[in-house]
């Protein structure tokens, strides 16, 4: 149980880090266009159109 005295504070550090990363990402404009990027992330065919075309 003693390990919890170490792990719980570490969890807090991780949350702080995650929040800082998120704020950094938002401020650098990565969340400015939710529509386009949400769509792009799911359509990987578009990364290599030529290769995929040959398969069809």
């Amino acid at each position: 149980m003693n390990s919890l005295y170490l792990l719980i504070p570490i969890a807090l550090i991780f949350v702080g880090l995650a929040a800082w990363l998120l704020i950094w990402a938002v401020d650098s404009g990565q969340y400015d266009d939710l529509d386009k990027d949400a769509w792009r992330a799911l359509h990987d065919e578009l990364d290599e159109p030529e290769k995929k075309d040959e398969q069809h």
Partner: protein
Amino acid sequence: MAPRRRPAFLSKTLVTAEKCFHCGDDMPPGCDYTVEIDGEDQPVCCIGCQSVALMIRGADLTAFYRQRTEYPPTPTDDAGETASWFDDANWVSGFATTDNDGHLVVPLLVTGMSCAACTWLIERALNECDGVLDVDINLNLSRLALTLETNVSAAPAVAMIERLGYQVRPWRTDDRLDQLRADNRRDIRRLGVAGLGMMQAGMFAVALHAGDMQGIDEHMQGLLRWFSAPIALFVVIYSGRSFFINAWKSLLQKHLIMDSSVSLALLLATGASLWATVRGSGETYYDSVTMFVFFLLLARFVEKRLRDADLLALVRIEDRLPEFVAQRIDEEWQRVPRATVPVGALVRIPAGESIAFDAVICRGESTVDEAVFTGEAVPRHVTEGDKIFAGTINRDASVEAVVSSAYRDSKLAALQDDVDRARRGKPPYLKLIDRIAGRFVAVVVLAAAATAIGWMTYDPSHALWSALAVLVVACPCALSLATPAALASATAWLRRHNVLVHGEFGLLASADITSVLIDKTGTLTETRLKLDKIALADHVDRDTAIALASALQQFSNHPAAQPFHGLTTLPGVENVEAVPGKGMRGQWQHGEIRLGSAGFCAELCAVPAPPDEVDYWIALVDARGWIAWLGLGESLRPDAEQLIASLKKRGASPRIVSGDSDSRVAHIASQLSIPFTAAASPADKLALIQQLQSDGETVLAIGDGLNDAPLLSAAEASVAVASATALTRAQADFAIDEENLLLIPVLLDISTHTRRIIRQNLVWAAGYNLIGIPFAAAGYVPPWLAAVGMSLSSLLVVLNALRLRRFRRREP
């Protein structure tokens, strides 16, 4: 190509034989253009679409067609002029910026990007352009930032985008847009931080709740609480700040709103939890607090994103004017940026271009298309001394004119002001939720106070905790999710059916519509004129007269010539030429032959008066005398009658409001047997709608032209039909993307349905809270149960809202 790769939406409803494969417009009759895409011959509606499709195929970008979720714009033939503007480095530097490496970044406003696949297509195509270093597209804003190598012109890249069928304008920064972007970032930061905090506090809470049930070491409990506290505190202060600010502002105005109850609950729950942590006894609510903040912020974010579709409204009308004009300087014509032309300057306006200034013609004559202001399809004849207006189009011939006022004093700017004013003066559709919230807060606060007082007399040690439990149980989390969740669902449904939703109030108000104001030209009627009636002299027959007119009209692009295009022409008509603003003339067997206005034809021979005032009459005469009057009229759209019938069935009374002349409006209104108001200026329309609203009517406005924009902004709910201009679309609550008026009743149906779902949600959420309160007051609700109850009731509300996505269109 495997058919399953095509978005389900496209393969089921849109890809049919009668639609253009590229732009989705109806195929014109007799059109046989095709393009082979991925091994299949696909129909396209015009040469423009064909060339874009071929270009896409040539660049190996056909994945675009499989991936798109919306159709791209139909290419227009006036592309090309814009690109050359970008060769002028001086002008470009007026809005471009430089990045850290010294490269030029040119921001562009690209209109027509309808879905994310369009952004991919444009990026790919631009990567092939020489000198383009980077392309960054923001779809929400229709903004494209082009990073160029040093000393490379943006013109080829702009030309490429235009060849793909999109329209390009320079992007000028706007304070409102910067503000919106900053707000959006702030909201995401707050939401994200609340989410992370909620997860971590929730993780600790699971251990704490389990400990409550199974027993937990006191040190461990203290440790978990001490580490939950900073997380919850940070979330409340960082993310929840806006609730406190709103609540404080409304308190100063002596109002209670949803945020009042939210703030009170947050403050008390956080404060009591901190106290319990310090003292080492009592209950903590850190998980509820963070979850509460997250859910509420999420609901607001969803609601705000709906409204942000309004960003379109920021498309400034001024940007539609030509950027460069020909000005007379030092006895020669020079091409100068529009912004530098002073009042009093002499400018030349070429035929076919839109007019950049309010001006007075000093040489030449032409006709101007003023549909922007009047909705009238037939252009006005102008000559020396006549005033012409910015935003209208010079059709026939080049004219020279003296600029009479700066843009901000122009008729176009005045129209924009009208729109803004109408929008501000719009009666706020009462926010259902805030109306309920005011009473709700009062009830909850009273209940909490009563609980505290009750326990004081009975067992003071329970007073604080029971009162607190009442507040937490009554947290109006589900209550505040009820409306945004339903609105988001309905919006998604409408979007899938080609209706864009800009204003969520419109969606709520549509359920109550009692009165409908409909524009005539372009909304109820086809935009093109058709040959309606004909009056003949004794010596000719109908077919000869029409064939003769067609022979004269076939080379004209005047709206009055369109009905004759494609008809059989009479051979033997020669030397046909257009006389600007008057008509056409040519040589036929008996000498000169003329077609056009009464005055123009009367120069040749005597012409009788036109048969009536309903149609737009053109005369046909030759040297021997009058031959015929050809009456051009508007035709109703095929679904107009059904629209009116369905509106009447819903109990809404329709009325035509038009800027057109009395007799023409009466003609259309009598076909539909509905009342009308004719010859109405935008200001008259505004007055009419305000009159109706003060009589207690809830008004739906339907229109397409810029002259309808003030009307649309002032109405409780408004619809812009498919042919509408960008500004009009931006003003309307709904913009319909296909030529189908019957989507309007569907829209009213889903609005009624949405209202029903919202009501169910509100009843459930309020009911849950009111039932929970007595138990909490009696001390039967431990913190973990409060947290579970809150999550479950929120989930239920969201799931109920999702039922809207399965809404079925009722067959009319």
